[in-house]
Structure formats: structure tokens, C-alpha cells
């Protein structure tokens, strides 16, 4: 028969395969939907015996991977804005097993699509192995004594996930009404059609009828409706014109005295503003026409432990951003010091700015011990130390940093007189 949507002559399945019945009914169901033309329909097929049907469709067809048809169809359905278009995914129980999460995701989002799982209770294409949906006791070539455990109840899972329309039926007789109802559902509609694969299913389970198999395994047939929901449309947010819209470049308005590359490492504790202090320093340097790079490192649990930043400053463009031995290290807490101890021990010159509470490590660097945490507390310790460093190091005017700070979100929170005073 040459249908409007599907040529059901010479379907590529074995004689007696349940896929014939579902396919023929799908053609009838599609034809019964008023106003639907083949070019309104996108059929996405999985890999498996059922998947090779795509060439018989007169609709748009997409034939992808084993188990992924539902996700691929979901992508298409989310991308297509015209609600009149029907996206249909056809897959087997094998495809539904390996791609279970795709079904749940599509159901949970209520993506506008119809999914038909052709559950012949085994992997037909690869020789009849059991799938996640194979019921207990059903025999297959690799489990001739029958599957020892029950199969997934996909209908229950998807109903619980929020699918508005879920059906399980036996692929016997006329299924037009059920399939048409699924096709007409706005949003996610799911159909599990239980079938028999004569080549492997009948061979290993002779004389067992489809309805007996379902009954004996306690598989319920029926239609489950979920709460009515609007079909999912991805939000299209009116994006800002540019990621740079809110960000002004830094203007070089002061002069630096730095003539060589200078490497600073700031190391303290999480939550004490180490990373932002590093950025303020770099921004200050850029405002003095220096080049700057910054890298941060901290544990994956960002809220605890050390927080370390590496800053490079140079009057020339910086390409290589590695620091073998820094010119200055600021350590404001024990965790911070522990993190950079190895680096500090390698220093043969330069300066270590160390909070007064910490024991000095063995190093040839000049050690400046000071109560950085002092009256302003841990959160300002690195800024105090940086103020002191700039006062002494001859890189750029300390003022450049203070100006950046004043213009920052911290500008109103910092007591600048105290900061200066604490920095000595």
C-alpha cells in the first residue's frame, strides 16, 4: 500500500514482525490527522530493526544513532517554532534502554513530540539479546532460561516524570485511534507498543501469546494522563548587545616605573578577597600602561581552603605566563602560606610579605612581617599588603591601586585612611 505518509509495501521487516503492525497503523493515524501533510512531519528513527523504516516515509526523515533518536528529535522539536509541525521518534526497546534519560528529559520538559517505543522485548537487529524492557521469564538466545528480573516500566517512569500522555498497548489489530490521540497531544506523548519478534522472540518462547506474556509479567496496558502543561518552548532571551556593553576598557592615565617583568603571588584563604585583590592590582597596573596577567588557583570546593593568585606585570606585552620564582609573595594566612611554601623556599631574592601571625619559612627572600590582618581583618589583609608592596617596590604609584579600589564595588566599604595607616 502506498500511503500518504508511509509506503507500507515491502516494509524491511521479517514476516510476521510486530513492527509491520505498528507501522501500518502509524500511516493510518497520520492520515487521520486533519490538515497534516507529509512535509509537516519529521520522523526521527533510531538504530534497530525499527529504524531502517525511514526510507519508506514521505515525510522529512532523520536517521541517527542507537538510542539517541529521542534526544535528536527533541533538539529538532525545540528548534522548530511552528507548532503545526509534528516531530516523531521511532525506536525499539533497546534504544529506549540505552537512551532512557533522553525520554525522561523530553517528558519532563514536555517537549512537543510523539515517541513510539516498539517493544518487542529484545534487541532484534543484533540477534535477540535481552533489553531493559524484557519481562521476567522471557527467553532470549543469550538467556535461554529466561530473564531473571523484571523489565523497566517505562510508562510509569514517564508518567511520574510528568509526561502529559502515556499509553501502553499490544500491537494487535487497529491501533489508529490510540496513535492518532498521541499525535494530536500538544506536548510530549508516549506510546509503548508491545510486539513479538518472530525471528527470536517466537523461536525462544514458542506457543506464548503476546497478551499472555504481558499478563504473566504483570504488565499493565492503558492510558495515563499527566497534568496539562504548556508544551516546552526554550526561552529566547533578549541578549545584551555585547558582553562588553557593561565593561569599559581601562585607560592608561598614570605612569609606571617598572622596567622589567615582575611576578607577584598572593596567597591567603578562601573568602578573603585574594582573587579580587589580584584583579585590582592588575587593573591598577594597566591604568599605568603596564601589561598584566592573572591566574587564580583554589580547591574545587571554592569556599574553603587556600586561595592563590599569580600576577605578572611588565612594561612589554606578556606572552609566557609561567612564574618560576616570583619577585614578591604575599601570604596572609596559614593555608595561604602552606600553598606557596615551596615557591617561597626557592626564592633567592625578592620579598615575602608575611602576616605577623605566621612562622617564617626558610627562604633567602627578604621577609617583611607585618600585622596585615590587623585592625581591618582578614578580608582586607591582602589589600593592606599590596599597599605596602607598592609603597616599597617601585612598580607604580600606590595611588593607582587606591584609585581602582575607590572605583570598585568595595569603594564605599573600605576605610581608606585606616588602610593606609595599617599599611604603615
Amino acid at each position: 500500500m502506498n500511503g500518504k505518509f508511509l509506503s507500507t509495501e515491502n516494509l524491511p521487516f521479517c514476516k510476521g514482525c510486530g513492527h509491520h503492525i505498528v507501522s501500518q497503523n502509524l500511516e493510518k493515524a497520520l492520515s487521520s490527522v486533519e490538515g497534516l501533510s507529509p512535509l509537516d512531519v519529521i520522523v526521527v528513527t533510531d538504530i534497530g530493526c525499527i529504524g531502517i523504516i525511514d526510507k519508506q516515509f514521505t515525510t522529512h526523515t532523520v536517521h541517527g544513532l542507537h538510542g539517541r533518536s529521542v534526544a535528536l528529535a527533541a533538539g529538532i522539536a525545540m528548534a522548530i517554532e511552528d507548532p503545526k509541525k509534528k516531530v516523531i521518534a521511532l525506536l525499539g526497546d533497546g534504544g529506549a534502554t540505552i537512551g532512557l534519560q533522553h525520554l525522561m528529559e523530553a517528558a519532563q520538559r514536555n517537549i512537543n513530540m510523539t515517541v513510539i517505543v516498539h517493544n518487542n522485548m529484545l534487541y532484534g537487529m543484533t540477534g535477540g539479546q535481552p533489553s531493559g524492557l524484557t519481562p521476567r521469564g522471557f527467553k532470549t538466545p543469550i538467556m535461554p532460561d529466561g530473564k531473571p528480573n523484571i523489565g523497566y516500566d517505562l510508562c510509569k517512569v514517564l508518567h511520574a516524570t510528568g509526561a502529559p500522555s502515556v499509553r501502553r498497548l499490544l500491537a494487535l489489530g487497529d491501533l489508529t485511534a490510540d496513535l492518532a490521540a498521541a499525535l494530536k497531544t500538544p506536548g510530549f506523548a508516549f506510546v509503548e507498543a508491545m510486539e513479538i519478534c518472530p525471528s527470536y522472540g517466537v523461536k525462544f518462547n514458542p506457543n506464548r501469546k503476546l497478551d499472555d506474556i504481558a499478563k504473566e509479567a504483570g504488565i499493565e496496558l492503558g492510558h495515563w494522563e499527566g497534568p496539562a502543561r504548556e508544551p516546552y518552548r526554550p526561552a529566547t532571551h533578549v541578549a545584551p548587545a555585547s558582553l562588553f556593553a557593561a565593561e569599559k576598557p581601562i585607560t592608561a592615565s598614570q605612569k609606571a616605573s617598572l622596567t622589567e617583568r615582575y611576578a607577584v603571588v598572593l596567597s591567603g584563604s578562601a573568602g578573603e578577597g585574594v582573587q579580587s585583590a589580584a584583579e585590582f592590582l592588575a587593573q591598577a597596573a594597566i591604568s599605568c600602561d603596564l601589561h598584566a596577567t592573572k591566574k587564580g588557583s583554589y580547591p574545587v570546593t571554592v569556599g574553603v581552603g587556600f586561595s592563590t593568585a599569580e600576577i605578572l606585570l611588565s612594561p612589554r606585552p606578556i606572552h609566557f605566563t609561567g612564574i618560576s620564582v616570583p619577585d614578591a609573595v604575599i601570604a596572609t594566612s596559614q593555608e595561604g602560606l602552606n600553598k606557596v611554601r615551596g615557591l617561597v623556599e626557592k626564592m633567592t631574592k625578592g620579598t615575602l610579605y608575611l602576616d605577623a601571625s605566621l612562622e617564617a619559612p626558610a627562604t633567602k627572600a627578604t621577609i617583611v612581617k607585618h600585622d596585615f590582618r590587623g585592625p581591618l581583618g582578614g578580608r582586607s589583609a591582602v589589600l593592606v599588603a599590596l599597599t605596602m608592596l607598592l609603597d616599597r617596590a617601585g612598580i607604580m604609584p600606590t595611588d593607582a591601586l587606591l584609585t581602582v579600589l575607590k572605583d570598585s564595588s568595595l569603594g564605599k566599604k573600605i576605610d581608606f585612611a585606616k588602610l593606609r595607616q595599617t599599611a604603615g
Partner: protein
Amino acid sequence: MSERYFIDNSRLIIEAAARAGAEVFIGYPITPANLLYLYASQRFPVVLPAPDEITTLQWMAGYAAAGKLPVTATSYPGLALMIESIGMSHMMELPMVIILVQRLGPATGTATGGATGDISLLHGINSGGYPIPTLCISDPRDAWELSAKAVHLADRLRCPVILLASKETVMTVQDVDPAVMTAVEPVTRRFYTGEGPYRPYAPESDGVPPLLPVGDARHQVRITASTHDQNAALQHSTPEALANSRRLAEKVEKNIGDYTLFDWDDDAAETVVVAYDVTAAAAREAVALLLAKGEKASLFIPKTLFPVPPRYFEILGRYKKIVIAEENLHGQYREILFGKGCRDGVRGVNAVGRLITPEEIAAEVRS
């Protein structure tokens, strides 16, 4: 008075991709690619959080089949999950951009560690040896230009394009001259406009078949990842189908002139230093170090890693000594260019878990 931004390359990559016309970002979080996801959420018209990387790629393929240009960003563990679907998208000829931010492996490795260890994997990413265009950034200018280029190439060649970076090249914050942000031409999509019948895999003279989005109201569109002829009809291994598969390689190879991208400072030296991604910066400084001492070396920074442009061999063939620096175990790109045996004069500088320094490269040039 100079003006400069203090930003990371992730920001440049996302802004340029959006300006080039990429419309959808599908994300699954993974360090060190998270900044790209974050910026995309502020910049792309549509951003979807996927539940895993296989779904990510499948959704992208769905969007691409429907005529949109999707982008994602991931790192090795995510890439590993995506590979089957990248192969699918390549066979289906779906335009998309996958930003791969390399990190320190093997396996989960160190999420916040840098490396350039995925080169061999990318070289052989498709079963059968079909190359996927892979552009690698090494500085802010690349982040901007190659990101836009990747979007254009994906459309032009109708295939997935990989934009390669690493932890260091997308997370380090640096001062950037706004001048690198040159005008980006938004892509004009190359869609089929003929009267039909539409043959989804019938190529034009450049080997690329124009795409028609599924759901088109005038022509039937068929898309498949199985071996197929120009009508997308499944075939076992007919000459027509095999020719179609071969065309997948040919279309990216024969248009390589449009995207053979590299920096080359030829200093009439006998030695050339080759490096890409983060190591390109060390190589640049190594050459400067040598020059400061009155020693000469040329510098070659490949940006188009795959397919390897034939021009590279023409250039590298001029040098007696070739020093290739890269942050992986045995020199993955070196082995791809010159084989495991290597010709005389080809040397590697390799490191794992740390940056290769300019001094190490300079020492290898001198040795």
C-alpha cells in the same frame, strides 16, 4: 593614552561566536570550560542546560538539522561522551562548533590543570580517518578571530568544527587591546534555494551540499548517519555511497586554502620552533631570548591543526632543525606531522602538568 580590557579569552570567544551568528549554546558544565558556558548564558539568544554531553550533542544536531547554528564547550571527559554523536553530525553534515578546552589527563586527571593532550584523539576522532576541521587558539586575537571563523566554517563546509583551547588559554585573565575585536561578519547561511527535487547530499562544485532545514514546506529533507548515497538512501557499500563518504574528507581537504591559518616569523634561520595553544607563548619568548643573544630561530604557530594543511610541510621542509614544543607525553602533533620515527632534525620539547618554559625551548634549539 592606551586603552585595554582586562579579560579572559573565554569572553572573546563567546562574544565573537555570537557576533558571527551562532544562535544556540547547549551546555554541560565542566572545568575549565565553565566560563564559556557562563558567558554564553549572558550572550546567546538561546541557552539550554543539557543533562549530559551525549544529549548536548544530540540536541545540537537537532538544532543544526532545523537550520540553527549551535555551539557547546567541553573538556576531555565530555568530549569522550560526545564522540559518537560528533561522528554522527559529521556524517549527517550538520554545522556546529564544539569548543574543546583541554585539561590535564589522563582520565578525570586534574580539572584545573593545563595540557594539550587531546591532539591525537582529535586527529583520529572519526572512524575511518575523516578529518574534522580543528582550529587552535594561542592568544586573544585568535580567540576572537578563530571563534568567528569556526562559525563561518561550520556553515560553509556544512560540518562540525572544533575550536581548540586549553585551561591556560581560556582562563588566564590578561590585558587585551580592544583593537583585536575587529568587525565580525555575521554568517549568511548557505541554505538550499533551488526548485528541487532536493538531493540532500548532492554537492556543489566545492564538495559541499547545501543544507535545507528539516521541516521545509517545499521539499522533503532526509538526513542520515548511515552509509548513504546523494539522496540519503541507505546503502551498504555501493560505489556512489562510498564516494559520498569520501567526499566528507575531500570537502574539508580541498577547501583547506580558505582556512590554512598560522603565524610564521621566518628569520632565515636553520631552525624553526613550532608550538600551538599555550605553548606558542613560550615559543614566542624563546625565539626572542635567542635573538637577544644574537642567535636565530624562526617561529611557526599552526592555528589550523586538522586537517594538516599541506602548506605546513612546504614551510617546515625548509628547515634543517624543527623543534616542536607541546604539553603532552610524547609530542602528539609532532608524531602526526613526522611520524613516530621522525626525520632527522625533528626534536620535541614535552612536559606534562606544567608549562614548558621559553628557556627549555631555547636550550633545545641550541643543543
